[in-house]
């Protein structure tokens, strides 16, 4: 008898937890009440999105599956574009501009990772509501899921690209600075929230103004150079400081993310500038090659990064909240606009 009771014990907390969850999210048994109205609270919306999380997974999975199935090279196509970007910038900056950063490919990759996540998420989510007009018009589900699923797709690419980065790191024998990993994770969360917020707004607005999709592509090209991805932060730092624009440059959440990624992954790479110097000794001109270490990354401390990241995360969350409000405001007319 005692044995039975003991065996039954561990199950106790789990059922209690399940009950709590059921209370929180509602279960089939107590017939959840759904309200269709012009005014629904954001908390209610978030709850609905949370309930549809499995749908999100299915949508991401089927999106990947469709892309994979449809073409000869399948999944690889989606990496062709980032790979090309990497290759072109590498060639241009290494062999034409003669950058002094060592392991320049790794440096590029660090910046491209958070950028690609943002870029892919925004570009593909802008058109998603229009592309999925069929279900938006006929099926009731939280439409935010469509935009969010594109962020999910971008996130899965991010993870695949991270795997490739690992290969690079091994190849170039670069060891990341693991101490800074928490900031990277924070930056990743920031990146996801920020992308999701913009994805929501842009996908919703694109229903009403279909050229937004094209506008974004143009803006993205410009935005790419607003972060120290292809050039080191140090090369702009003094210019910015001279004009008092450092705050503006750092207000771009993507800059903060790129810096965090670089600090962790590229932080251990030492770059040196090689400059010839001349001295005259005993009437002879002697040429030395001087190796001076150069500061390629931002020379800020951890406190600064945490502050920056915290600010960015707070800003992104606020933006996400506003995005939800905007989305909800215009969502009511999707079915008739499409």
């Amino acid at each position, binding site marked *: 008898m005692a044995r039975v009771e003991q065996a039954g014990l561990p199950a106790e907390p789990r059922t209690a937890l399940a009950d709590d969850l059921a209370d929180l999210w509602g279960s089939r048994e107590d017939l959840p009440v759904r309200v269709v*109205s012009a005014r629904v609270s954001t908390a209610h919306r978030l709850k609905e999105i949370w309930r549809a999380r499995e749908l999100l997974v299915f949508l991401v999975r089927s999106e990947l599956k469709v892309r994979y199935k449809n073409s000869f090279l399948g999944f690889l196509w989606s990496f062709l574009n980032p790979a090309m970007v990497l290759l072109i910038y590498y060639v241009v900056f290494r062999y034409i501009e003669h950058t002094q950063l060592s392991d320049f490919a790794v440096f590029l990759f660090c910046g491209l990772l958070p950028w690609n996540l943002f870029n892919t998420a925004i570009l593909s989510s802008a058109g998603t509501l229009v592309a999925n007009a069929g279900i938006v*018009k006929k099926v009731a589900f939280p439409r935010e899921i469509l935009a969010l699923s594109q962020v999910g797709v971008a996130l899965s690419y991010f993870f695949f690209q991270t795997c490739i980065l690992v290969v690079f790191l091994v190849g170039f024998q670069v060891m990341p600075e693991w101490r800074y990993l928490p900031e990277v994770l924070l930056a990743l969360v920031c990146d996801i929230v920020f992308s999701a917020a913009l994805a929501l707004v842009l996908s919703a607005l694109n229903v009403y103004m279909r050229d937004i999709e094209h506008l974004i592509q143009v803006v993205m090209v410009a935005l790419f150079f607003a972060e120290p991805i292809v050039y080191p932060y140090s090369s702009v730092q003094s210019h910015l400081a001279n004009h008092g624009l450092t705050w503006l440059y750092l207000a771009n959440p993507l800059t903060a993310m790129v810096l965090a990624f670089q600090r962790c992954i590229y932080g251990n790479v030492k770059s040196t500038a090689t400059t010839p110097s001349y001295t005259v000794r005993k009437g002879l001109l002697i040429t030395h090659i001087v190796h001076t270490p150069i500061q390629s990354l931002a020379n800020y401390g951890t406190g600064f990064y945490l502050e920056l990241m915290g600010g960015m995360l707070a800003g992104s969350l606020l933006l996400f909240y506003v995005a939800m409000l905007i989305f909800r405001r215009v969502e009511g007319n999707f079915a008739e606009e499409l």
Partner: protein
Amino acid sequence: MAAAVEVQGVSKRFRLYEEKYTSLKERILHAGKVPYHDFWALKGIDLEIAHGETLGILGRNGSGKSTLLKCIAGVLKPSAGEIRLRGQLAAMLELGAGFQPELSGRDNIYLNASLLGLSRREIDKSFDDIVAFAELEEFIDNQVRFYSSGMYVRLGFAVAVNVNPDILLVDEVLAVGDERFQQKCMERIHRFQKEGRTIVVVSHAPDMMRQLCNRVAVINSGQLVTVGNPGQSIRRFRDVLMDSDENTGAVPAVEIEEGSLAAAPAPPPSNRKVRIVAARLETDHPERTNMHPGEPARVVVDLEVTSELSQVVFGCSLWSQGDDLIFNYEGAEPRRLPIGRSQVTFSFASLPLLDGSYSVNVKVQEPAGGTVHARMEPAVVIPVENPGLTTGMVSLPLTVELTTGTGQSEPALVDQLPT
């Protein structure tokens, strides 16, 4: 118990633009001066649908019935008012909406069912049922783009009904697949009814409504005209239909006149070509209030023709009290109707009906289901009293004979059927 669906003061405004600008450039160019007018597709609808009820929403094309259903489904957000739904909802606004042609049937079941709000575990559980219901066992791993249109809708329907919703919304999608599959769909709907689920059906086909629904709501120009038992509502719907044929727009404020043995005159709008002035029942025994089963009966209808009609047919139908159709005749040989008074007599050589009161509806219309010029519903009501022992609706001649093992035949028992 609270209602399954509460619709409170729901209005929906559509903004109709004379020209639609769908780009940022155009919006900036035409900022602030886009001509539009508001169109209220729904105006202050109040409706309660109880748990376990099957409600039909009947209306002409463009009356707002589908808009209401879409609002209930949550696809459209009402401009004012709110809708409360209690329970899991599945809406069949379009079958197979959201199927991804590149994916297999299996993946699409998961995708579609989760779009409808099912969890992964629930889908796992009903997956086999869905496949069996759609009869797609062999093709479930094929890409949906290779499916025939029949397979496509079958899969869509199978997913929707296997969601096991507490509230099911159906928008004229039951007419899918071949007859056998339709039968299966209807069976499933009936099972839902028996299980006490709430169903809301939208249609412009009154006959399906009569078979399916407990209550029918009639919507015209965005307003709720009436909610009531199917027979009553359908009659009202026909009034609305006819009136809007003549003077489009306004909802008529005519109350339905309950049929009696004496005829109820149809509302006489001036531009109607034919008017049914009166209708009466003639029997062989005018001294009795009730007819007996099997007696002959004649329905005499007086018409007033104001403009000559070259080809019309006369139809009549017989309905039970529960609004089941017993008999329907749509008219065959087209006749000419000259201006003036005319009389049509529908003679039943025998009316083998049992206890109850039966309505006869009559109509004058163009051949082959064309325009209805005039109708009267009901034209007459026939009360029948059965002096015999049988119960039911129809009196069938029956003898019962017993043959025992001894080879002797008992005399046949014959019910006392007056002939």
